[in-house]
């Protein structure tokens, strides 16, 4: 607890420091490549029947929105005098982004990753090691993201004096959901400026995928008080009726996991359930508490698409736009197709939170012999 209090105190102080903010902005710009473009996807627009813009977080250095948060937190850790970073990773994107930031800032870095995920995301394991991080296999529990978080928390408890825990999403105990949201807000802030420049008005709707929920809260946050419909799309896996999914907001209930109270997937005794999604980055039984709040307030509409629908969107975006999206981000696109009538003729922004190179092998395996 005292480590969390120390982190909160320090963060609230540093947040107001001009020197810190200037340094972070420079890193995001010169190292990360911000601002990322807001791209008018004309062919995809035609196919879906709406005017569609993609916020190209896949073009952020490293290939996903994750770097916004890892640069911010690694710099924070450095200001706090910590020498070492630990982090968890699911798809490997957060692990890679953490290893990247740690390498650049000269911090020691250990990444916890479930063995199931290590198998699914071999390329990212290799990338993290190249970047000088140690990847520690997690064999407990379901051997995925939730268990990697358990192990990272245990490590942090043990090495709290020298180590910063660089949590990758808007989950976990306070102040993490707040810190990660603040570092991801840049997505929405830029989107707002860009859409006003391109279109002279705010979009009708914004769609983002939700696992822990960091890319979604990042793009939603600066639009919360605007007349813009917001959609958060969870991983429906093989379908909600099969229990093989990762959609706590759509099909879970209120509970406490990893130190925050939100929606979780659990049995009637409160044991956390195994989740399933083709997108490793969405495969988590909880969701950021702020999303629970936005759901209860009715501000954001949360829905889901299945593995199959996401796979189809993955292929369609690749073919029509020449952009291979992350399977996670493909969930957001799939929703536009699934509820096409809702978006017909509307101005829509989708957060293309990551690129899909990491998924190509898995998709090839899943689609098997299909040639078209």
């Amino acid at each position, binding site marked *: 607890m005292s480590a969390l209090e120390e982190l909160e105190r320090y963060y609230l102080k540093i947040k107001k420091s001009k020197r810190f903010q200037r340094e972070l902005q420079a890193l995001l710009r010169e190292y990360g490549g911000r601002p990322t473009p807001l791209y008018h996807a004309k062919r995809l627009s035609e196919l879906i029947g709406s005017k569609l813009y993609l916020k190209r977080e896949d073009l952020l250095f490293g290939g996903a929105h994750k770097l916004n948060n890892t640069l911010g937190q690694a710099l924070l850790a450095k200001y706090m005098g910590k020498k070492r970073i630990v982090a968890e990773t699911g798809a490997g994107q957060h692990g890679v982004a953490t290893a990247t930031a740690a390498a650049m800032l000269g911090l020691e870095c250990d990444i916890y990753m479930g063995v199931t995920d290590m198998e699914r995301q071999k390329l990212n394991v290799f990338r993290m090691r190249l970047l000088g991080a140690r990847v520690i296999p997690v064999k407990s529990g379901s051997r995925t993201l939730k268990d990697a978080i358990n192990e990272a928390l245990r490590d942090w408890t043990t090495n709290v004096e020298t180590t910063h825990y660089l949590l990758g999403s808007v989950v976990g105990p306070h102040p993490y959901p707040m810190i990660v949201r603040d570092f991801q807000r840049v997505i929405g802030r830029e989107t707002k400026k860009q859409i006003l420049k391109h279109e002279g008005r705010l979009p009708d709707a914004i769609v983002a995928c939700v696992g822990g929920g960091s890319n979604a809260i990042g793009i939603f946050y600066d639009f919360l008080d605007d007349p813009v419909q917001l959609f958060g799309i969870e991983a429906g896996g093989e379908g909600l009726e099969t229990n093989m999914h990762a959609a706590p907001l759509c099909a879970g209930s209120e509970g406490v996991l990893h130190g925050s109270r939100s929606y979780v997937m659990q049995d009637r005794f*409160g044991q956390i359930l195994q989740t399933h999604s083709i997108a490793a980055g969405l495969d988590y039984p909880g969701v950021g508490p702020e999303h629970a709040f936005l759901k209860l307030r009715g501000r954001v509409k949360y829905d889901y698409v299945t593995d199959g629908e996401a796979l189809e969107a993955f292929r369609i975006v690749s073919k029509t736009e020449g952009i291979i999206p992350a399977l996670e981000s493909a969930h957001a696109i799939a929703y536009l197709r699934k509820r096409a009538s809702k978006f017909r003729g509307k101005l829509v922004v989708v957060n293309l939170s990551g690129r899909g190179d990491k998924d190509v092998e898995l998709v090839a395996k899943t689609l098997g012999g299909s040639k078209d």
Partner: protein
Amino acid sequence: MSRIAEKFEELRRRGEGALIAFITAGDPAPEITPSIVQVLAKHADVVELGLPFSDPIADGPTIQEATDRALRAGTDTDTVLEIVKEIREGSDVPLVILTYFNPVLQFGIREFLSRLAHMGGDGIIVPDLPIDESGEFRKIAREVGIDTIQLVAPTTPPSRVKTICERSSGFVYVVSLLGVTGPRERLSELVRPTIKKVKRLSKIPIAVGFGISKPEHVRAVLDAGADGAIVGSAFVKLIKENLSDVGKMLEELETFSADLKRATKKLAKFK
């Protein structure tokens, strides 16, 4: 006075420290737990039962595995309450439940605590429920007569230690090290200063846990001023090593608890 407080008072009069033994309820199977507790209680002064939770973030590999074994054997919250009832029918040993917040929340806080009291339980420890969030929980526990044992870590600042001690009942749980549960070769260097700090600020007994796995550890924490020592993973390890022979398991648990209990007697501070 609660059964836990009475036990500490009785030990104090006898010049002994408390041996608190932890095992995971339902490990390796729910029907074996009462027999395990029966042999432990021959020597241990208080027994802690872990109510298994799928994501035990404060526990090291030994107790994680015990949790998995218990859950696979079909242990759920109802089962654990039945186990408490069965133990209570044959023993007066103070019983404490250690679990995480979500199982309690899903069962219903009041429902769980009052059933626990009704079945004969005496106290509860919830490591992931911080003191600032536990007001309602403690209020209900007080109403139904369950002691709420709170944790203090070596990094807890003195002002917070004071608050935690004031809001604990039964005893205060002093975490001996920075880290998770599990047997260690040596005691952490942090343990003596932490015991000193907490002892000074607490009006109720304090017991030290995490990494306490040998008679000499027990002795050392009691000599440093603690009123009790909590041993968990070392017992759980004996269970794991004897899964195929319950008779031998019970025998070894009894011998080990006797060895540990011996280390709590004839303490220097009472001479």
